[in-house]
């Protein structure tokens, strides 16, 4: 038998069970509709103003830079854990990687992307 058949069976069982629940709710559940119940429900305060507001473009630059240097750390962690095994070649490669990133930092600094005003 194909090893995936049990997965298929449990998937079918899940779909069937949901169908049964929905059917019983629909068929036997008490129903007392009212206009307030039919209103769309939102939690929290009533919304004030549209959700598609304008942001200053500076926030995007900061967010982008944050992501870049955050991802850098993601690469540093596995390297730090395997530091001994990777040896001299690992140091060289990480040094090259960091040089490129520091170059990028110097660029955004000199171009004034880090200044708020």
């Amino acid at each position: 038998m194909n090893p995936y058949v049990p997965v298929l069976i449990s998937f079918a069982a899940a779909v069937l069970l949901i169908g049964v629940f929905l059917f019983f709710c629909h068929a036997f559940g008490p129903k007392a509709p009212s206009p307030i119940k039919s209103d769309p429900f939102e939690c929290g305060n009533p919304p004030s103003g549209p959700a598609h507001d304008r942001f200053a473009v500076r926030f995007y630059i900061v967010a982008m830079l944050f992501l870049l240097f955050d991802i850098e750390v993601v690469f540093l962690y596995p390297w730090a854990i395997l530091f001994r095994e990777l040896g001299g070649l690992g140091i060289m490669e990480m040094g090259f990687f960091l040089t490129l990133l520091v170059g990028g930092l110097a660029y955004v600094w000199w171009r004034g992307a880090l200044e708020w005003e």
Partner: protein
Amino acid sequence: MHFPPVQFDWIAAVPMTLLSVGGLGVLLLDAKGKGRNPLVSAGAAAAVLVATLLWFVHPLVPHATAADARSFTSMLTVDGLGVFVTVVCILTGLGTLALAPSYMAREGVKAGEIYPLVVFAVAGMSVLAMGTDLMVLFLGLEIMSLAVYVLAGYQRTVDGSVEAALKYFLLGAFASAIFLYGITFMYGAAGSVRLDLVARALASDNPNTVRLAQIGLALLLAGLGFKIAAVPFHLWTPDVYQGAPTPVTAFMSSAVKAAAFALALRILRVGFGAHPMLWTEAVKWLAIATMVVGNLAALVQRDLKRMLAYSSIAHSGYLLAGVAAGHPAGTSAVLFYLAAYLAGNLGAFAVLVAIGEKGDRNLNLDDIAGLYKTHPGLAFALSACLLSLAGIPPTAGFFGKFLVFNAAVKAHMIGPAVLIALTSALSLGYYLTVIVKMYMAEPAREYITEPPTVGVRLVVVASVASVFVLGILPSLVQGLAEQAAIPLP
């Protein structure tokens, strides 16, 4: 899962390293000077490109021969094809760097990132030209494309330029995703993304492998078709080429096309060289559609940049016919054609930079009427370049078309061969219209353009010279192209 240790062959990676580290240096230099010295940045970027060029031609550099050219566990191959296309891209980059300062000064664009971006794009192209692993090739494709997206939208206050960047980026990202999806099918079929291992897996003739690889190849071809602007993946081309700054358009139409064709040749030749029946028909029909649609659409254009965009689509069609011809003759014809196209195309765009006014408003067919009377040199240069694009002897374009035609006939592809001749005759319709307007019509208006700068003059003179040198002595480059087309053992 077992991964074999990767061999490190630094020598093979020197060109990419030079280009990317050099590009970073140019970026920092430009940022330190607050982008106020565009000529310094352009000069530094040109120095990086020339240094890389010297690395290839210098006799003291240990040259990899075909036998030991594979490096980084066959992920990178420094062979004739890779070096030839990289050199074509570097030359295009140099031309772009020479054209950009005067164009940007005229358009009032201050920032100087265009120079490092050109270097970064060339770095991606060198990876594309020499990569022999689908993931490495994808990396090269993205390094190149990201830089070119930004270049296309460089005039961010001009609507057309922003439109070009957005269209190019959105469609390009979509094409990259399709390409990547094709890679996953290749991996599913072959269990590897290395092209030599893909070829080995296909050699087993297992029907499941071949079927999966066929789906993967279809997706890869769709992604490639976008990059080389083949019909029916060409719809972005006219708007992007027209909207982008003219030096960038020259760069896109010559260098990006060359790199994408290197990618196509590499995938089809190394991965699928033993299985031409899987792709020859598809590439043949792409070529036919591209030649016909590109030339017909170019006939009705009034704007010169837009006309050259459609002409660039048409040339992709001729090149695709060479790719479909397959065997070494087709490959060497494609490589020669790329060099010949670079000469004519770069020269034509250089003339457009020289005669354009702010905002490229005057690059209409009626605006260049009587150019011969006011600027005889530029009129002659544009005529030479357009005749080369049309394929009239004794220009470079004639031999390019002749070689592609020859390869197609040798491969018994009579239909595409006849179409190459017919559509070339058709293309005379729009190329000659420009020349007739320049020489026969009276000037419709006063030209207020300043005399072209040294950089623009250099590009125009070098392009026209190469158009004639390649046209009269084609063997200079043809030998190199034939050498480059010898498949690796």
